[in-house]
């Protein structure tokens, strides 16, 4: 079979499943990775133009994390902007029924093979975690809308059961209508803490406090940037009203600096923090809680893009990265697009706008590859204006809630940094005392970031703590800190973005050795 570009609408090749050989990859014009706000919007937008679209998503249902739901929560009572989702889902479902979208839920995409000139991208996934089979899709254009995950900071006791990310508490509610605990402290930095607290209160949990390390009054100094995202105001007001109704105190410029318990969490220590997040001695108090839901902003999931060769930029501080995209959401790899949190954390509204622009541009690129489209794609000025406005708000949000370096004084030597390999701050310090100056050397000596999660949870913390302790050791100023940046860029390199059974890798090798074109 030839995959050379063909003319006209013939490009839309959909080989029926019963005809397709079991191991031969499926084909689409546009592959979309992720079915959250950005991915769903990109998929329906591309499908609207007549493209064949394949959507691969880790979740069992469309919606991503923002609109994650299960049969018990399908009424949207724990969700925000639910009517926007149901409208989008209706369009998506119609395209799936009409055969224009090939929907693959439960697919963990682990690699995007970039094409040689004139060839197609190959997207590889492990399908169905209970069976773990290899699935591959070929496409002329790919949109990565993989989203983001909560950033957590390692503090003494944070590995205790009952300590979880803010997103974990939210996901329990949204997907399963189960409250994470009875007495909950919500802590971290960023506006996401408010819906988490409001949702838990609504579900009957006692929210002991919302603990915000930043100073949200800083928003008031930038009225123009807030005006750009005026739709957020009633949303935030609604959460605050619900918190007031349930008498949930909001502590700003405070942080949870330790968690306590033996086999599970029973209390946390809250302390006041300075603008640079140094804990203020003597300000500590203890709050009883069976759950701590913590989140210090979000980390974009850029592994697939990084491995495919897309250019990255530092985003959100302390070694987090996002994909660099142009006005059409295209990355530095032609035909590879990114939308939503993978391009920098900005929330669901921005994700939908970026998904719209990316879906349209990816469909155009696929058509171009087939020799169909001529001339430049006209700009969607309205979408681009909205995107600019929401970017301004996202930048402000990032500034107000940015993680400050003082947090590196919260953990002690016994605090686990790398949860997977159980590497403590003391182990990091020992590696640094042996002469390690950068994350790579620390990793080789002490093994942080070498477990199941591949450093996703601890990577930024290891970089920040390494910089701090190398500096303490040298008393020599900024050598360690300067290393932290490009060091971290190397650290995000993960050839396989998901755990892959060896038999799937073997299939992959034979697949690539005998190209079917």
């Amino acid at each position: 079979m030839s995959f050379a570009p063909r003319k006209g609408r013939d490009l839309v090749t959909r080989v029926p499943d019963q005809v397709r050989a079991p191991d031969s990859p499926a084909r689409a014009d546009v592959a979309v990775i992720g079915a959250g706000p950005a991915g769903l919007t990109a998929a329906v937008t591309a499908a609207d133009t007549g493209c064949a679209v394949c959507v691969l998503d880790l979740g069992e249902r469309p919606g991503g994390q923002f609109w994650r739901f299960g049969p018990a929560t399908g009424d949207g009572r724990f969700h925000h902007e639910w009517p926007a989702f149901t409208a989008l889902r209706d369009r998506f479902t119609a395209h799936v029924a009409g055969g224009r979208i090939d929907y693959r839920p439960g697919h963990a995409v682990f690699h995007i093979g970039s094409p040689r000139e004139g060839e197609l991208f190959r997207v590889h996934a492990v399908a169905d975690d209970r069976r773990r089979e290899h699935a591959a899709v070929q496409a002329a254009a790919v949109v990565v809308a993989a989203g983001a995950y909560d950033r957590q900071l390692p503090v003494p006791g944070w590995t205790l059961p009952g300590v979880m990310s803010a997103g974990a508490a939210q996901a329990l509610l949204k997907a399963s209508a189960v409250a994470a605990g009875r007495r909950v402290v919500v802590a971290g930095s960023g506006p996401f803490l408010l819906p988490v607290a409001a949702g838990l209160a609504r579900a009957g949990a006692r929210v002991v406090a919302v603990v915000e390390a930043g100073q949200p009054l800083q928003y008031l100094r930038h009225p123009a940037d807030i005006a750009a995202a005026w739709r957020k105001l009633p949303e935030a007001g609604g959460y605050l009203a619900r918190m007031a109704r349930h008498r949930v105190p909001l502590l700003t410029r405070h942080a949870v600096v330790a968690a306590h318990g033996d086999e599970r969490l029973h209390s946390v220590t809250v302390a006041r923090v300075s603008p640079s997040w140094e804990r203020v001695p003597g300000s500590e108090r203890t709050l009883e809680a069976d759950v701590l839901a913590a989140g210090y902003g979000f980390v974009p999931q850029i592994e697939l893009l990084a491995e495919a060769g897309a250019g990255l930029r530092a985003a959100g501080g302390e070694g987090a990265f996002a994909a660099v995209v142009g006005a059409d959401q295209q990355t530095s790899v032609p035909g590879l697009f990114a939308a939503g949190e993978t391009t920098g954390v900005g929330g669901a509204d921005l994700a939908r706008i970026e998904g719209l622009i990316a879906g349209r541009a990816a469909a155009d690129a696929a058509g171009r590859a087939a020799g169909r489209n001529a001339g430049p794609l006209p700009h969607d000025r309205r979408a681009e204006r909205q995107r600019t406005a929401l970017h301004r708000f996202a930048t402000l949000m990032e500034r107000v809630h940015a993680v400050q370096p003082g947090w590196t004084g919260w953990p002690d030597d016994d605090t686990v940094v790398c949860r997977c390999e159980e590497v403590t701050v003391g182990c990091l310090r020992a590696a640094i005392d042996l002469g390690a100056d950068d994350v790579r050397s620390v990793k080789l000596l002490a093994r942080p970031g070498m477990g199941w999660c591949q450093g996703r949870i601890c990577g930024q913390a290891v970089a920040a703590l390494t910089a701090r302790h190398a500096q303490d050791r040298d008393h020599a100023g900024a050598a360690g800190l300067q290393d932290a940046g490009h060091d971290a860029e190397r650290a995000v390199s993960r050839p396989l973005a998901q755990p892959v059974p060896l038999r799937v890798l073997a299939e992959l090798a034979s697949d690539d050795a005998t190209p079917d074109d």
Partner: protein
Amino acid sequence: MPEEPRPRIDITVDGAAWSVPADCTIAAAFTEHGQVAWRRTRRGARPRGLNCGIGVCFDCLVTVNGMPGIRACLAEARPGDVICTEEGSGFGDQGS
């Protein structure tokens, strides 16, 4: 929480019969049952349960119907599932 009682399903956890809400993740089933830890770590034998909640951290791994390393935060419990908590590497070593 839901006004009308939710339908429930039967699963087995470490040999015990559990009735858990239908249509919830395995992590939610543990949480609803009051169990916050369902794995012990390889080095320190420390208890672990739900952490990131969205499939990134791999702290919540369980064995489901003999398949080890399933993320309890993503997988939904299905009627008749036989779930075993794990001890060690996440490759299915069982507790004693």
